[in-house]
């Protein structure tokens, strides 16, 4: 036992070095990110994992046909689009994989761990209420000095009896690795303050399905993270083309408008919301804006910069602008923002070319812990 893992560690370390670019440059071009999927209620979440896929003969695009199972009439759209044919059902028999659910708090923790995100430090004079410094928890890993003898013994005893190895004449109990339990210190600060997230999205004609999907995925993860950091959180969704309006979550993700783009309209609406509903001394404020970088005119961009500099930045924790690459967008807006406000560390701008860029962009937004 254990030998498996030890031997595997070398193969795994080699793979990691390839992913990091330390070894085998020739394989870099085949590196891609696949994903592990999990479900949270109706939402599907994905955990990116790197993958090196060497080229081989395989079928191309015109094979998008398959056999499925379930209700529905001819012409009906199927639920979910991850349907796979029987042909891709995997190669090994008897390797059963069972899906289990993850809850949102765990997801946020994973996200934090994967992207190495710091916990957020709420601004202002409000104190964090912490309950740190007490060993109240139990976990399955830890240093020997914290081993909880009674719990460990109890588990070992249970296992021995359950497995039929208990002999009353020779009542020996030998704990093994899985039996061990350790005290753990609960140090998680419990922020008492509230936060509001503004998701502003450009829905003008140039934002296509793929661009919206990228925004959707990003917004989901950002919400998840911020929710884990604040007890009381509100989310305001704003869409804009040449005019801006507040919409509900459903509309935010599905609306398709067309027409021109006047970004200042969204910033004005956001500011109005802040002034009317979310006073900065009571709220931590996180405006996020996503667009493909095309604005109506340079004059409107100047107006946006002025709004940000004078009104929004002074009351927000951080302002994030995520520019999603589209076939039509010039990407000028990010350049303009960087030029005008790049020195201000309260503003973070990122450019996302494709889905692969999402984790990096989320990290850029949340890495400062503001």
């Amino acid at each position, binding site marked *: 036992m254990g030998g498996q893992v030890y031997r*595997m560690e070398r193969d795994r370390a080699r793979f990691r070095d390839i992913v990091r670019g330390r070894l085998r440059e020739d394989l870099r071009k085949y590196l891609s990110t696949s994903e592990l999927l999990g479900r949270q209620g109706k939402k599907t979440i994905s955990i990116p994992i790197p993958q090196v896929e060497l080229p081989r003969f395989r079928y191309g695009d015109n094979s998008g046909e398959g056999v499925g*199972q379930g209700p*529905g009439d001819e012409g009906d759209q199927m639920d979910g689009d991850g349907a796979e044919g029987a042909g891709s059902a995997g190669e090994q028999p008897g*390797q059963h994989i069972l899906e289990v659910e993850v809850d949102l708090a765990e997801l946020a923790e994973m996200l934090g761990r994967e992207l190495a995100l710091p916990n957020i430090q709420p601004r202002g004079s409000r104190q964090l209420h912490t309950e740190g410094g007490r060993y109240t928890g139990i976990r399955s890993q830890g240093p020997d000095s914290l081993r909880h003898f009674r719990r460990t013994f109890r588990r070992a005893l249970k296992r021995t009896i359950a497995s039929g190895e208990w002999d009353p004449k020779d009542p020996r109990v030998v704990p093994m690795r899985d039996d061990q339990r350790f005290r753990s210190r609960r140090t998680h600060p419990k922020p008492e303050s509230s936060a509001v997230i503004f998701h502003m999205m450009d829905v003008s004609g140039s934002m296509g399905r793929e661009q919206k999907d990228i925004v959707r995925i990003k917004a989901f993860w950002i919400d998840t993270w911020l929710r884990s950091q604040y007890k009381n959180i509100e989310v305001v969704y704003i869409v804009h083309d040449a005019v801006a309006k507040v919409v509900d979550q459903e509309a935010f993700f599905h609306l398709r408008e067309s027409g021109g783009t006047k970004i200042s309209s969204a910033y004005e609406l956001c500011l109005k919301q802040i002034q009317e509903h979310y006073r900065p001394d009571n709220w931590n404020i996180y405006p996020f804006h996503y667009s493909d970088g095309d604005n109506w005119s340079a004059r409107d961009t100047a107006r946006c910069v002025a709004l940000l500099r004078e009104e929004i930045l002074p009351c927000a924790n951080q302002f994030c602008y995520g520019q999603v690459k589209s076939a039509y967008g010039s990407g000028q807006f990010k350049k303009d923002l960087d030029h005008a406000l790049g020195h201000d560390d309260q503003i973070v701008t990122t450019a996302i070319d494709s889905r692969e860029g999402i984790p990096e962009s989320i990290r850029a937004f949340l890495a400062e812990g503001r």
Partner: protein
Amino acid sequence: MATGGHLPANLRQQARITEAAARAVGLDFFDVVFEMLDAADVNAVAAYGGFPVRYPSWRFGMDYERLQKGYDYGLSKIYELVINNDPTYAYLVRSNSLMEQKLVMAHVMGHADFFKHNVWFGPTQRSMVEQMGHHAARIRSFADAYGQDTVERFLDVALGLDGLIDPYLPLRESRRAESRRETIQSRAERARTDFEQHWGDGAESLRPGPRPSRSAPTTPSSGDLPTFDILGFLVEHSRLADWQVEILSIVRAEAYYFVPQRLTKIMNEGWASYWHSHLLTHGLLDASEIVDFADCHAGATAVAPGQLNPYKLGIELFRHAHARGDDLFQLRQVHNDVSFIDHVVDEQFAESNQLFVYQRNSRTGKNMVVDRDWVAIKEQLLRELSWGGSPRIQLIEADADGEGGLLLVHKHEGRDLKLDEAGAQLKTLAQVWGGPVHLLTLEEGVGRRISTDGQEISVIETARAQDVCGGQESAQAS
């Protein structure tokens, strides 16, 4: 195998009971050896394809990382693993409940019976646990002699070609007991003795320098072509160094070992699920375990909207065949997934299982139900499963251009290749062959010839492809 722990007394007892119950219903298998593993170790063994010892490769590390992350994040966990070998090895995961262990044991008995009796498994190497260990030792010794990087690079090249085999070859060969496979092994054999004589097996083995080869490639004869066993052709005729030939033949042997599992995935899982369900509900379960079992069984055979689950499809096929009065034991013996589905699927089956054909709508990017006609469903299923789900690539000429170039043909059957990857794969092939390689295929009905010398790739339009690829398009045109 000294990898896993021995079973505690109660599970040993349970294994005996399960085995007796399985034999009583007519299942027959080699000895089944259960071993107990911790969850972390199970992921490692699974990443190694179920085997305790494999050659060193980053690919196993990659698979392990995926499995381990899925496990860490609570997204997936492996229930059981079973290896086609004599004796049949199966792993139990320590953290499973007693009910789950019972289910796994009964399921394993089904697989073990299938391994022993299904005709496609007949020609497989039954001492693969030792073989894999032996392969690993060979490749490690090459790495010691020629450097890990060099050997790993060539191993990657060889593994990139492991799809270029003929899934039906082993069965055909074993039927004809023909000499061809023996010749292929014999070149690898010669290479091996040569390596050992030259390098020795002790400290001597680090001696560098060139060496004479006694295992020269043979010239292709007309009897070798055409062939789908391109890997076998390369083993026999390529101008590679001996150690490279041996790596190719190791990769080929392992690829052929796994082929039957690909050809019978649905049947094999269906058979195992059919019997675990039968055995557990006919006496193996305690009354208190029935609900948990039902829950667990339903999870394994669950159908996500619009997807096919091989466990579910397989078990339903056997149940349907049973209801029709077929002899299940005979079916499991003579069929693979394609012929089995062809034999069993009828209108009633398609209807009661709510099967349909879907198609991706290019506008919305979503899949849509397009057909519920059982004939169309069956045709689609068979198309997807034929040739183990991969494109059929045949080598037809070994000196097509007068420059010793290989000529390959993609048997089109209505589905285009991914051309960029095909080009990259051809480049790999050209490097191994040491000469140009050409592939004839169709792209949206237009004949193409992709050529490469291992460096540059060129694509030209050619009418010849229309004839030899034998695609639907050309059939319709005539």
